[in-house]
């Protein structure tokens, strides 16, 4: 199938269970949002992976430029005081 005839690409996000965030699972092709949900369901939740789905047109996602990764991310490297490692986390807090 040529690119011109392909359905648009959508990114799929799945919430594994209540309380967790949606996480990126992969991508699917679909003609519109309704079909995208169906295809995401049929492709990525066949093994009880989720309780909620988000689909987003891939073209709507703006990514950071890998060439900018130095200025974007390296300044955080020496800010160790931003990590919450000086606190003890109670055992019953599962997702933080």
């Amino acid at each position, binding site marked *: *199938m040529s690119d011109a005839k392909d*359905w648009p690409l959508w990114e799929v996000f799945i919430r594994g269970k209540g309380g967790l965030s949606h996480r990126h699972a992969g991508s*699917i*092709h*679909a*003609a519109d949002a*309704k*079909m995208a949900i*169906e*295809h995401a369901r*049929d*492709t990525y939740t*066949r093994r009880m992976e989720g309780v909620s789905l988000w689909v987003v047109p891939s073209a709507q996602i703006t990514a950071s430029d890998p060439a900018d990764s130095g200025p974007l991310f390296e300044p955080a490297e020496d800010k160790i005081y931003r990590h919450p490692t000086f606190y003890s986390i109670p055992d019953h807090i599962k997702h933080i």
Partner: protein
Amino acid sequence: MAKASTLFTYALRLGDDSLIIGQRLSEWCGHAPTIEVDLSLANVALDQIGQATHFLALAGAIEGKGRDADALAFKRDVLDFTNCLLVEQPNGDFAQTIARQFLFSHYQALLFGELAQSKDERFAAIAAKAAKEVAYHANLASDWVVRLGDGTDESRTRMDQGLQWMWRFVDELFVMDEVDAAAQKAGVGVDKAALRAAWDQRIDGVLNDATLARPASRRPALGGRKGHHSEHLGHVLSEMQFLQRAYPGAVW
């Protein structure tokens, strides 16, 4: 209290319907228009084969002669199959497959909704689980009917032709013969004839959204419940049963 032979046949019919449409849909595996649609059809097929496994196992247990679901699926010949004629019809193109699924899944959705209220908790339990599956199948198929019907000239023509092909097999779904009547009287089975009005309403609603006309009524094709099948079922079975015929008792 219904006779065991009545309940055996009743379970067998439900199992055969699901088994044969599951096998038909499986023929698409690896051949669908896109990989996503391939997965959609395979998921529906697996749901149907799961239902068939439950209903045929129940039929075998009611019969009490030691036949399990596999024995009933793979070791009966064509005249002993009791599925409706609709499910054995050829896949044709994608639209024809969708037409078959659309008509059948809405029937199953109504049927299992009622069967889940059966006095016989074995039937009720299978139906309650299957009702959620077929509700999704009905939505999926309806969605495609609208997309194809209200799509391009070509997709519209194909969707229309698919419905024309399948329409003569609709009436059989709602026939109440002596087995159905006895099962219903015992509080086990469903009054299928009473489902027709709700089915018509569902189908007409989707066809309206799809800007498609309801096919004209034709002389209905009947006989599947008695083993009088179209020439297509033998070919379905020859592929489905090949392994157990060639290597009896093979397991993996």
